[in-house]
């Protein structure tokens, strides 16, 4: 098993290198003078000269790429032009919101999508099946930002009822999430890796409030994430439901299912132990691919729901042409996507033991 995992890890290296090359090339393709593109049209020649030397822009391209790669390996993504702060620090602040939002959305889409697909396949051509497929077809065709806006409006109409959900923000004004390291009395010097590490985990509000036992913050942060997560989950949910259905239908006509039924096994046992287990591989593959949709969708959803996550930051950076942020965030999201797909590949071993032998 470890051999398979190592081989997969090694295969990811050229892809990661490729990602760096693409983002590096894109940053060099910005039309016009890179200094003026980065610092704005009003940058003086003096400032530009300093900028050029500081970022090594006067050196040959391969050397520049070497510097760029070395910096990234050190975790240095440069400084944001707009905020004059390290991109890495901004990422530590913003990434946790996106991660929580993404995982909540993924959870919703799996918990709802998989059973929907199974029921659809088992009761093929029934009204449930037809209804599910109509929903799935409409679901994949909907723009996520439109659905988000519509959900915000629908819940706005429910204002005053117990079903109302907050349409924007991460926490209600006045509710503060106290970092777990402060609660536990851990002291860390800012600008150290330890501080970045602690800060990252404490910004995962749901995680932070669970380990510190702050149920008020937990309830509030989950409440704020439900609407955006619902909007974000719809497309992956529809795709997962469709995939589960077709994968289950494929398996259900196999001989061993007929044998299992002929043996007189309970239908639930046949469906879950014999059919679903074997239908799982394509479902897991599609779940892995859905992370890409979730990442891209997060950009649009966060903008609508006023969540200060990676997507929102990227949107602001695009508007302000803050290239270090665009570049840094793109690298991290793409690397995260590769990592998640790697996890999916590794999970195949547990789902299908035959893969280990190949």
């Amino acid at each position: 098993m470890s051999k398979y995992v190592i081989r997969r890890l090694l295969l990811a290296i050229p892809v990661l290198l490729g990602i760096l090359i693409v983002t590096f090339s894109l940053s060099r393709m910005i039309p016009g003078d890179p200094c003026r593109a980065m610092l704005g049209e009003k940058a003086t020649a003096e400032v530009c000269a300093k900028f050029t030397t500081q970022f090594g822009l006067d050196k040959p391209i391969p050397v520049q790429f070497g510097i760029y790669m070395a910096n990234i390996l050190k975790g240095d993504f440069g400084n944001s032009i707009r905020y004059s702060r390290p991109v890495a620090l901004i990422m530590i602040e913003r990434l946790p919101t996106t991660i929580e939002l993404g995982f909540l959305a993924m959870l919703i889409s799996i918990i709802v999508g998989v059973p929907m697909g199974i029921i659809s396949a088992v009761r093929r051509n029934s009204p449930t099946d037809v209804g599910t497929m109509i929903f799935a077809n409409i679901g994949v065709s909907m723009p996520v930002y439109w659905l988000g806006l519509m959900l915000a409006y629908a819940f706005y109409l429910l204002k005053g009822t117990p079903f109302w959900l907050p349409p924007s923000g991460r926490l209600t004004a006045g509710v503060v999430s106290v970092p777990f390291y402060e609660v536990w009395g851990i002291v860390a010097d800012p600008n150290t890796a330890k501080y970045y590490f602690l800060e990252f985990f404490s910004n995962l509000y749901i995680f932070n409030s669970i380990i510190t036992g702050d149920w008020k913050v937990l309830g509030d942060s989950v409440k704020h994430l439900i609407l955006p997560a619902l909007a974000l989950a719809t497309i992956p949910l529809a795709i997962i439901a469709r995939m589960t259905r077709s994968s289950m239908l494929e398996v259900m006509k196999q001989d061993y299912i007929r044998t299992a039924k002929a043996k007189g096994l309970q239908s639930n046992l046949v469906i879950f132990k014999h059919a679903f287990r074997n239908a799982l591989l394509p479902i897991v593959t599609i779940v892995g691919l859905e992370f890409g949709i979730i990442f891209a969708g997060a950009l649009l959803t966060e903008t609508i729901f006023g969540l200060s996550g990676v997507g929102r930051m990227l949107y602001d950076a695009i508007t302000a042409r803050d290239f270090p942020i665009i570049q840094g965030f793109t690298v991290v999201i793409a690397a995260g996507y590769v990592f998640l797909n790697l996890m999916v590949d590794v999970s195949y071993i547990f789902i299908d033991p035959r893969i280990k032998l190949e």
Partner: protein
Amino acid sequence: MKVKLPWVKTTPEKDYRSNSLWRLTQRRIFRQKSAVIGMTLLGLLIFIAIFAPLLAPYGPYEVLIGKENVEKRDPPCIHILGCPADKPQHIMGIDGNVRDVFSRILYGSRISLVVGFVAVGFAILIGTFLGAVAGYVGGSTDNVIMRILDVLLAFPSLLLAITIVAVLGKGIQNALLAIAIVSIPAYARVVRASVLSVRETSYVLASKALGGSHWHILFNRILPNSTPPLIVRGTLGIGVAILDAAALSFIGLGAQPPLAEWGTMLGQERNQIFTAPHLVLFPGIAIMITVLAFNLLGDGLRDAIDPRLRSAE
């Protein structure tokens, strides 16, 4: 005239219709409900796009201030649904610049369809070339091309498109180019796979033995085999391209105002969701119906073409 005698057993008439892949597919498509619905919707959309100037009651950029008794962001007014007869009828309401939303939605179909077809067409062209060369030549050429495309696939497609447009500058053309670039790997993979599957077949060998040039073999013997999966992939891809283009326009990177593009219309009025929801509702429905048409048609085509899937469904 044929006389049927009850005591004479007649054999059923033989079906002499062509059984080529195309004919079979054509017949199967019309048996697929989803494909028929998709085709109908798409036909309707193309009709609207072509005849928009005749169908739309107003011009897409026509500002109605001083011309009609309407206010900025007026809700829909439909006479048969009880809207006073002295108010002018605007079935989808009035937008923030006092223009008729319905007319803009009708004109918007032109942009979305063109973006979808052109972006996917471009991606298919480049993707086919790269995939065909990779599959046919093989070896290190194949490796280099496919690894580069793998890197493009490693990015979530919309994110890469956003980054490309952020670099190239906003505008519908750059958005179109970005969407085309990020779609190339999918088509290249489809073509490469079918090239690999037929490269060693006897009819390709026969063509080689007859002295056919590489280009002749590639374009006349091998590529026709990859057309059906390409059409399926392309149809589904147009839906995705339209969705991505609208998303780019929504965040202000694609089509720029005052262009009547659905994503732009949505993006411009998104802050009015609580006061004038119709300005967000209708462009969204338009995008959804268009994408749905391509998705249904693509699914139907796939089921008609791929026998393995057909048996599963």
